[in-house]
C-alpha cells in the first residue's frame, strides 16, 4: 500500500502490521484489525470493550479469561486473535437473554457461589460448556472439568452447590433445598440472619461489574515499573536518554524526580522510598517508572534504561541475617537486620514450667506464601486542574491509601479522592498502599494524562507482601490432667526487605496464642528480620497461622504423651466467656466448647481417632481471631467505621454510604442487612455505596476481620436514627406518641395494636415534607482502654474474638506420599451470622485456602534472591480437583459488642486448618512433619525415617 500524506514516512515505521480478521462475538459479526501477537483476550477486552472477560495470569493458568470458542472453553489469553478468524466466540456478556439470566448465572447468584467475582465469568462459561455436553455431570466430573478455573475465595463448595442447582433448573427439576437451622439470636428479626444473595452478585455473574482494569478513561496512557534485577546493590547511575527517545514514551521517572519522603504501612517504620534513591534491596525493588501510550512501548523503553548497579553482599535467611557481620540492608537502623523485636513475659514462666508434670518443646517452620488474589493489582490516577487527584484502585483499605498519598504528596486529604472499584480478592495483599497507587499518581501529574498501571502475575509476586515464613520454637508445660501451666514461644519472622505490616505481624504472632486456651504464664520472643527478598506483609490470619500450626501440633503431641484425647485436652483448656487473658485481652462471648463438641460429633471422632487403617488419619485444629483491631494503625480519635443513610424523598428506598470495603466477602450486603433491619425496611429497599473517599464517610476498610462488627454497628446506628425520625413523622400522622410506635417490614405500627399502622414509605415522605432530607448517621469506636499498658499491648486487642474448631480426615498414599484431604468438619462461633450463606462462604474459602497453604504453597528463590515460581503453574493453589467435602457449621452465639450479636469469620476460619491437617497426617502415617508445606517428598522421607 502506498502511503499518502506528509507523515506516511513516519507511519511506515510500523513494524508489526495489523491484520484484519472476521469474528462473530456473541452473535454479532466484527471485522477488526489485530496485531499478529495479540491474544484473543486483548481483542475481546481492548478492541471490543467486552470487559466481562478477566485477565488473571496471562499464561493460561487461572481460567479467569475463559470464553467459548465455537462452543468449546478456551483460555483466551493464550489463543492468538488471528486464530479466531472466521470463528464464533461467546463471552459472559452473551449468556443472558436481555434481562433474563441464564439458569447457571441464576444458580451462582442464589447459592452464594460468587464472592470477589473475578473468576465468575470464566467459571460460569466453563460450567455452561460442561452442562451443554453432559447435562447430568457427576460431582467428580464437575470438579475435574472446573479444575482449570481457579477461585481463591469460595473453596469451590458453593460453586458446586450452584452447579447442582443449575443442573436441576436446566433439566426442568426443582433444586434441592439446603438444610439450614436458623440461630436462636435471629428468631425475631426480618432481614438479619437471612441467607440472602449478595447485592453485587448479579453484576458479577453477567460481566457487568467494573474492576479497575475495566476502566478506560479518555486520553488514558499506561505506566510500568522498572524493577531491580539484583537483590542488593548501590545504584551508581541511571541513564534514561535512549529510552526517552522511543516513540510514544511520555515520561520516565527515577529516584531523582520524586520526593525524598519515606512511606510504608506502620508509622513506626516508614522505610520505603517512592523510587529507589541510591540502593535496591531485593529483586523487584522499584527503580524507575515509565508512562507511554501503551504497555508495549513501556516495555520497549524499559529495556533501554541503563542502570549501573554496584552489587552488594545479600542475605536471604533470617537466622543468618541476625548474625553479627551479616550484610546489612539498612546502614543506620535495624541492628543485625532485626526490624522488630518483641519481648513479652506474662505471669511467671519459670514457676509455670516448675508446676508442670510434663513439658515438651519442638521447632516448627512455616512457609512463605502469597495471597494470589485472582485479580492483579491495578490503579488509575487522574489529576484535575485544581490540584486534585482521583485514584481508582483495587484496594481493601481506601483510608490507608488516602492517608499515605496525603503524606507522600504533601497535600490535604481533600485534594485526594480514592475510589475503590470492585476488588477481585485481597486476603491482605491489597490492605496496604502499593507502588502502583503511588506511581500512577506521579506519572499522571507529570504527563497531564490519566495513567493506568497494572501488575502482571509475576510482578505481583515481586511486589510481595505475602505471609512471613516463621521459625518457631515452642515449649508447653501441662499438668497430668492436661491443664496448661506455661507456654514459651520464640518466633523468627523472615521479613523481606521492608517493614510493610511486619511490626504488627510480629506482635500478632505472639499475642493471639493467648486467646484460645487459658494459660497463666506465657513468654514470647519475637524477631522480625530483614532479608534481601520481597517484603512480607499481612495475609489472612495475619502473623498467627504459623504459631497456631505449631501450637495445635504440639498440643496434640503432648496429649499423646500423657495419654489424653486430642479434643479432651482442648476442652480442658478451652477459653471461656468473659475471661481476661494473661496478656490483658478481654474475651466476651465464647462458644469454643460448643465448636469442639459439634465437630467431635459431626466427624465421628470417637469412632475414628486412632482407629483408622494406616494411610488414613483424622486430626483436630482450632483457631480464632480478632473482630477488628482495637486501635488504628494511624493513631487518631476518629471512629473506626462510619455510615450515612439517605432516604429518597418519597420514602421508597434508602442508600447506605459506608467507607468500608467489600472485597468479595460481602460486606456491602451484610451492612445493608444491618441497616435495613434497624430502619424496619425490607432488603429490596436498600442499596449501598461504599469506599469512595469523597462520597462515603471514613471507614478503616477490610482488614483484621473488622467490617461486620465495626461497619455493622455504624450502619445499625445510622438505621436507628432514620427509624427514630420516621417514627416521629408517623406519630404526627397517626396522632399517637412516638414511644408507642415501632417499625418493621416496611410498616410503622402501634406497638400494642399492630393493626393500626401506616406504610414506612408514607411516614418517611411525611418526614421529608416537613423536616427536609431524611438522613441518619452512625459511627463506631471500640471501647476505650482495651488491652494492657506494656509495649505492644495494642496488638491483639479487639471488641470481640471468634472461635473455631476443625476436624480433618486425610488419606495418604504411603507409596507416593500424596495427601488427599477427604473431609473437613468446621464449626465457627461468629456470634450471630448476619448472613449465614456469606459466613459459610467465608469459612469454606478459608478452609480451602488454609489447606492449599499447608499442602502446596511455597515461594522458591534461587541463590540470588530471584523468585523461581512467580506464576500459577509452579506455585500451585488448590483447584476444584483438590477440594475435600467441607461441612461448615455456625454454632449458636451472641456477642454483646457486635451488631445484633455478630462478630468475625473471615480470618479466624483459616487458623484451625494448619494444625488439623498436620495432626491428621501424623495420625495417618505415624510420623510428624514439622515444616510447611507438607509435601509428598517430606512425607515419604518421614515414612522412610520411621521405618528405619
Amino acid at each position, binding site marked *: 500500500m502506498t*502511503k*499518502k*500524506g*506528509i*507523515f*506516511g514516512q*513516519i*507511519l511506515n*515505521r*510500523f513494524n508489526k*502490521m*495489523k491484520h*484484519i480478521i472476521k469474528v462473530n462475538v456473541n452473535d454479532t459479526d466484527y*471485522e*477488526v*484489525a489485530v496485531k499478529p501477537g495479540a491474544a484473543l483476550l486483548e481483542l475481546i477486552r481492548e478492541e471490543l470493550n467486552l470487559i466481562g472477560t478477566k485477565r488473571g495470569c496471562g499464561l493460561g493458568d487461572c481460567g479467569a479469561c475463559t470464553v467459548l470458542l465455537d462452543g468449546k472453553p478456551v483460555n483466551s489469553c493464550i489463543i492468538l486473535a488471528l486464530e479466531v478468524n472466521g470463528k464464533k466466540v461467546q463471552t459472559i456478556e452473551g449468556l443472558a437473554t436481555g434481562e433474563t439470566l441464564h439458569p447457571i448465572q441464576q444458580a451462582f447468584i442464589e447459592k452464594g457461589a460468587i464472592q470477589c467475582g473475578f473468576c465468575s465469568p470464566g467459571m460460569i462459561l466453563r460450567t455452561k460448556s460442561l452442562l451443554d455436553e453432559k447435562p447430568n455431570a457427576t460431582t467428580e466430573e464437575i470438579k475435574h472439568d472446573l479444575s482449570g478455573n481457579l477461585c481463591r475465595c469460595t473453596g469451590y463448595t458453593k460453586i458446586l452447590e450452584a452447579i447442582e442447582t443449575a443442573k436441576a433448573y436446566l433439566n426442568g427439576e426443582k433444586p434441592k433445598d439446603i438444610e439450614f437451622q436458623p440461630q436462636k439470636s435471629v428468631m425475631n428479626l426480618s432481614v438479619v440472619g437471612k441467607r440472602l444473595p449478595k447485592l453485587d452478585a448479579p453484576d458479577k455473574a453477567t460481566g457487568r461489574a467494573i474492576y479497575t482494569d475495566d476502566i*478506560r*478513561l*479518555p*486520553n*488514558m496512557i499506561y505506566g510500568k515499573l522498572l524493577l531491580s534485577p539484583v537483590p542488593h546493590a548501590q545504584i551508581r547511575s541511571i541513564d534514561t536518554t535512549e529510552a526517552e527517545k522511543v*516513540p*510514544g514514551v511520555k*515520561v520516565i521517572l527515577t529516584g531523582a524526580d520524586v520526593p525524598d519522603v519515606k512511606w510504608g504501612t506502620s508509622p513506626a517504620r516508614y522505610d520505603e522510598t517512592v523510587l529507589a534513591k541510591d540502593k535496591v534491596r531485593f529483586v523487584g525493588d522499584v527503580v524507575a517508572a515509565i508512562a507511554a*501510550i501503551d504497555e508495549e512501548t513501556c516495555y520497549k523503553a524499559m529495556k533501554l534504561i541503563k542502570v549501573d548497579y554496584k552489587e552488594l553482599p545479600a542475605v536471604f535467611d533470617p537466622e543468618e541475617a541476625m548474625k553479627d557481620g551479616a550484610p546489612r540492608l539498612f546502614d543506620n537502623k535495624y541492628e543485625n537486620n532485626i526490624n522488630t523485636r518483641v519481648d513479652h513475659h506474662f505471669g511467671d514462666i519459670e514457676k509455670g514450667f516448675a508446676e508442670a508434670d510434663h513439658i515438651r518443646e519442638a521447632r516448627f517452620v512455616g512457609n512463605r506464601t502469597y495471597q494470589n488474589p485472582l485479580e492483579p493489582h491495578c490503579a488509575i490516577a487522574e*489529576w484535575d*486542574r485544581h490540584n486534585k487527584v482521583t485514584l481508582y484502585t483495587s484496594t481493601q483499605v481506601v483510608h490507608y491509601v488516602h492517608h499515605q498519598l496525603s503524606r507522600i504528596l504533601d497535600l490535604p486529604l481533600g485534594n485526594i479522592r480514592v475510589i475503590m472499584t470492585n476488588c477481585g480478592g485481597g486476603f491482605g495483599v491489597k490492605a496496604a498502599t502499593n507502588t502502583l497507587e503511588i506511581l500512577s499518581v506521579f506519572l499522571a*501529574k*507529570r*504527563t*497531564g*494524562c490519566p495513567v493506568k498501571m497494572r501488575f502482571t502475575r509475576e510482578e505481583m509476586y515481586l511486589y510481595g507482601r505475602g505471609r512471613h515464613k516463621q521459625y518457631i520454637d515452642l515449649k508447653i508445660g501441662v499438668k497430668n490432667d492436661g491443664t496448661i501451666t506455661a507456654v514459651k514461644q520464640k518466633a523468627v519472622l523472615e521479613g523481606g526487605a521492608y517493614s510493610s505490616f511486619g511490626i504488627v505481624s510480629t506482635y500478632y504472632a505472639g499475642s493471639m496464642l493467648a486467646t484460645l486456651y487459658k494459660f497463666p504464664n506465657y513468654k514470647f520472643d519475637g524477631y522480625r528480620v530483614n532479608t534481601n527478598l520481597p517484603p512480607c506483609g499481612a495475609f489472612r490470619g495475619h502473623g498467627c497461622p504459623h504459631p497456631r500450626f505449631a501450637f495445635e501440633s504440639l498440643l496434640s503431641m503432648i496429649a499423646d504423651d500423657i495419654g489424653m484425647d486430642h479434643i479432651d485436652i482442648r476442652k480442658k483448656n478451652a477459653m471461656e466467656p468473659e475471661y481476661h487473658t494473661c496478656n490483658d485481652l478481654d474475651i466476651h462471648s465464647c462458644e469454643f466448647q460448643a465448636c469442639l463438641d459439634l465437630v467431635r460429633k459431626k466427624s465421628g471422632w470417637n469412632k475414628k481417632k486412632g482407629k483408622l487403617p494406616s494411610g488414613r488419619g483424622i486430626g483436630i485444629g482450632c483457631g480464632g481471631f480478632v473482630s477488628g483491631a482495637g486501635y488504628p494503625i494511624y493513631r487518631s480519635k476518629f471512629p473506626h467505621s462510619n455510615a450515612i443513610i439517605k432516604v429518597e424523598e418519597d420514602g421508597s428506598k434508602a442508600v447506605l454510604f459506608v467507607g468500608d470495603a467489600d472485597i468479595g466477602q460481602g460486606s456491602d450486603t451484610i451492612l445493608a442487612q444491618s441497616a435495613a433491619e434497624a430502619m424496619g425496611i425490607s432488603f429490596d429497599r436498600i442499596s449501598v455505596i461504599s469506599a469512595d473517599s469523597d462520597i462515603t464517610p471514613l471507614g478503616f476498610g477490610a482488614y483484621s476481620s473488622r467490617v461486620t462488627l465495626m461497619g455493622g454497628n455504624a450502619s445499625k446506628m445510622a438505621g436507628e436514627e432514620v427509624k427514630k425520625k420516621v417514627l416521629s413523622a408517623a406519630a404526627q400522622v397517626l396522632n399517637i406518641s412516638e414511644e408507642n410506635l415501632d417499625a418493621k417490614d416496611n410498616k410503622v405500627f402501634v406497638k400494642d395494636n399492630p393493626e393500626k399502622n401506616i406504610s414506612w414509605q408514607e411516614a418517611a415522605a411525611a418526614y421529608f415534607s416537613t423536616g427536609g432530607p431524611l438522613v441518619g448517621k452512625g459511627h463506631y469506636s471500640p471501647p476505650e482502654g482495651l488491652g494492657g499498658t506494656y509495649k505492644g499491648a495494642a496488638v491483639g486487642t479487639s471488641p470481640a474474638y471468634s472461635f473455631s474448631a476443625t476436624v480433618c480426615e486425610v488419606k495418604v498414599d504411603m507409596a507416593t506420599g500424596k495427601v488427599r484431604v477427604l473431609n473437613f468438619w468446621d464449626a465457627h462461633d461468629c456470634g450471630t451470622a448476619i448472613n449465614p450463606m456469606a459466613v459459610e462462604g467465608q469459612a469454606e474459602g478459608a478452609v480451602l485456602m488454609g489447606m492449599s497453604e499447608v499442602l502446596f504453597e511455597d515461594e522458591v528463590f534461587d541463590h540470588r534472591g530471584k523468585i523461581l515460581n512467580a506464576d500459577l503453574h509452579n506455585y500451585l493453589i488448590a483447584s476444584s480437583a483438590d477440594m475435600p467435602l467441607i461441612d461448615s457449621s455456625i454454632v449458636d452465639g451472641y456477642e454483646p459488642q457486635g451488631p445484633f450479636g455478630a462478630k468475625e469469620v473471615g480470618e479466624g476460619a483459616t487458623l484451625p486448618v494448619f494444625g488439623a491437617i498436620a495432626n491428621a497426617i501424623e495420625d495417618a502415617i505415624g510420623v510428624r512433619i514439622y515444616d510447611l508445606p507438607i509435601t509428598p517428598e517430606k512425607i515419604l522421607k518421614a515414612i522412610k525415617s520411621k521405618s528405619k
Partner: protein
Amino acid sequence: MKTIKIQLLVNNNEYEVSVSPNETLLDILRERLGLTGTKRGCEIGECGACTVVMNGEAVNSCLILAPQADGSKIMTVEGLMRNGEYHPLQQSFLNHDAVHCGFCTPGMLMSAYVLLQQKQNPTETGIKQAIAGNLCRCTGYQQIVEAIGDVGKKGETD
C-alpha cells in the same frame, strides 16, 4: 461492507485501526481511540464542535471519512496541553471566562490554534472569520474573541 486498515498520527501517537468506509474521523477519535474531548454536535459539519487539526488545517471531523484520513497527522484538544500544563490559548480562555457549557470549547480551541499558526496577531475580524464555523450558544462570542486576540497579541502561537 469491507473493513480497511488506516494509520493515523494523533497527538504524536501512532495508531493503526480497522475502519468501515462509512465511519468518520470523529467516530474513530471518540469511539476507538477514546479521545472524547472532540465533541459530536450536529454530524453535518454545521456546528464545529468536532473541529480537529488535520495536516495543519482545521476540519470538521464529522465530515471526514476515516479512510480519507489515512496517513494524516491529527491534533485534538487532548494534544494541546504539554506535560500537564495549559496551552496559552486554554489559559486565555479561562482568564476571559470564555468557557461556559464547554461543549464548543474544544473545537473553538482547535480553530483558534490553526488561525494563530497561520497568522500572527490576527485582527478581530480575522478571528471572527476563523471561528465563524464554530457555533457557541452560551457566550455571545465576545469573550472567546478577546481570549484569542490576547494570545495573538502576545505572540504565543504554539
